[in-house]
């Protein structure tokens, strides 16, 4: 399998002495949908900045589709489409021009770029707004514009830095569908997000950066299988004043209508519901108390903080 991104011993020390990356090693396979997670200030944006040539690395090696960033930065740049965290287009320029110009920077002739811009703007439902100044778009449409701009030169690697931050659920879901579609078409995707549900649903591989180091790197499936406990919140049909004894799983009563159930690795929902049925407790609905990945993530961060303390 081709390797899309290989980072070796990547370090970054900023001018103020902050060591944002402490020698990270990371591999992303071609065609993967890869989640890069970490708390604020962990080093995610620095790593992405280095990949995209926005930040100079202090040391280490970066390779994108076999092109070395030091030896052939232009080839690396041609492989990447970046959707940054913050809006970084000319707010006064018309939408279509922003996309056509970006294509031009990648050496696509204007006539061809116009056709490509039309295609991506139509795909992202921006075609009807193509002549308006970018500043007049809503937050969600601005995010879509950045995706359109990043896609126009058809990069084999897309890096999306919190692409769904601050957008409503409808746009977020349409963006998820779109990301899955381009990934299925062969584009490798690296996604950073604070919505861990998003990462769990979309990504096949995951790395967690914490304090400038890779704290975890594996497939999403392998990582989730390692989780030992899952918590659920159950809404009860009738009020319950006191919990009956002898529950097969760990139970707690939040209020008279809400029951919390924590299941260990070997416990099943069937056991829980069988017992509830026998007790005459009817359940109206059930939801995860915490997203599984979120639980894992918080455990990792907590452990690191305890170790640091």
């Amino acid at each position, binding site marked *: 399998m*081709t390797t899309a991104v290989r980072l070796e011993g990547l370090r970054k020390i*900023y001018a103020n002495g902050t060591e944002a990356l402490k020698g990270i090693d990371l591999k992303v396979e071609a065609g993967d949908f890869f989640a890069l997670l970490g708390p604020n200030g962990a080093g995610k944006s620095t790593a992405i*900045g280095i990949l*995209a*040539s*926005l*930040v*100079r690395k202090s040391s280490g090696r970066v390779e994108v*589709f*076999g*092109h070395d960033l030091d030896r*052939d*930065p*232009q*080839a690396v*740049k*041609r*492989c*990447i489409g*970046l959707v*940054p965290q*913050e*809006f*970084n*287009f*000319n*707010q*006064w*320029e018309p939408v279509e*021009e922003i996309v*056509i*110009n*970006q294509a*031009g*920077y*990648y*050496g*696509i*002739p*204007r006539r061809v770029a116009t056709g490509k811009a039309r295609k991506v703007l139509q795909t992202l439902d921006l075609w009807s707004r193509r002549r308006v100044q970018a500043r007049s778009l809503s937050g969600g449409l601005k995010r879509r514009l950045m995706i359109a*701009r990043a896609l126009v*030169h*058809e*990069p*084999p690697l897309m890096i999306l830095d919190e692409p769904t931050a601050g957008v409503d659920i409808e746009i977020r879901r349409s963006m998820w569908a779109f990301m899955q579609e381009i990934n299925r*078409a*062969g*584009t490798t995707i690296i996604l950073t997000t604070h919505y861990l549900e998003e990462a769990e649903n979309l990504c096949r591989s995951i790395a967690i950066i914490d304090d400038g180091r890779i704290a975890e790197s594996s497939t999403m499936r392998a990582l989730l299988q390692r989780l030992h406990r899952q918590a659920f919140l159950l809404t009860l049909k009738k009020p319950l004043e006191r919990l009956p004894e002898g529950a097969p799983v760990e139970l707690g009563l939040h209020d008279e209508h809400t029951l919390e159930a924590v299941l260990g690795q070997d416990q099943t929902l069937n056991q829980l519901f069988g017992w509830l049925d026998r007790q005459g407790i009817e359940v109206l609905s059930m939801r995860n108390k915490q997203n599984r990945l979120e639980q894992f993530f918080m455990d990792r961060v907590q452990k690191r903080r305890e170790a640091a303390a």
Partner: protein
Amino acid sequence: MTPDTRDVQAGGRVRGTNWIAFSTLVIKEVLRFSRIWVQTVLPPAITTTLYFIIFGNLIGARIGEMDGYGYKEFIVPGLILMAVIANSYANTVSSFFQAKYQRHIEELIISPVPNWIILAGYVTGGVARGLVVGLVVTGVSLFFADIRIEHPLLTLLVVVLTSILFALGGLINAIFARNFDDISVIPTFVLTPLTYLGGVFYSISLLPPFWQQVSLANPVLYMINAFRYGILGVSDIDPAVALLLILGFILVLGGLALWLLYRGVGIKN
């Protein structure tokens, strides 16, 4: 995955990409100042008209001839070049600083556009605005003065080189600028005094010997006089010396700007 994408992965590169990137940048720059023509092209036309009404008609009539020309004709080259200098500088300093401020300079940094193309694109944009404004001012001047260009090629050479030089100056200013004050300091406190004291409205032969020598330290004097020589055929300075000086400055500032872009000063972490 399209064949284009596979080509990109393999490091494939279409010939002429630098030219396409350059022309994209120039078109973008020209569209930018054209869209805001009321701020960019119109003011110099109004200012020049006022200069001609006040200095040319009202005061100039009492001044009489200067270097063998009527005062209105004498000030035409200086007024044109003054507008070219100010607008070439203003275009790059404001455009590049805005790109930094709104962070859309990142569009260029992440793309495979070499630094020298970024430099050439922005400078050409500055030259384009300088020349457009120069033509507008020339058009206004023709309403007030009778102008015949003595040395057309030299005139063109001086105006283009001067425009390149100040577009480079504007770019360097923008690279270092951290806020909007930083982009107005040089034009207000350096460029304007140098231009006004650079012989736009007078010949330095009118000055006492000491101030004549002081004036020779002003590089803008050389440019205005070389341009005046191109149009009127009279100058306080040897045009060859002026051309060498402009070329020297272009090499120094061009080299500096390119080095700053390579180092990522002001634009990269």
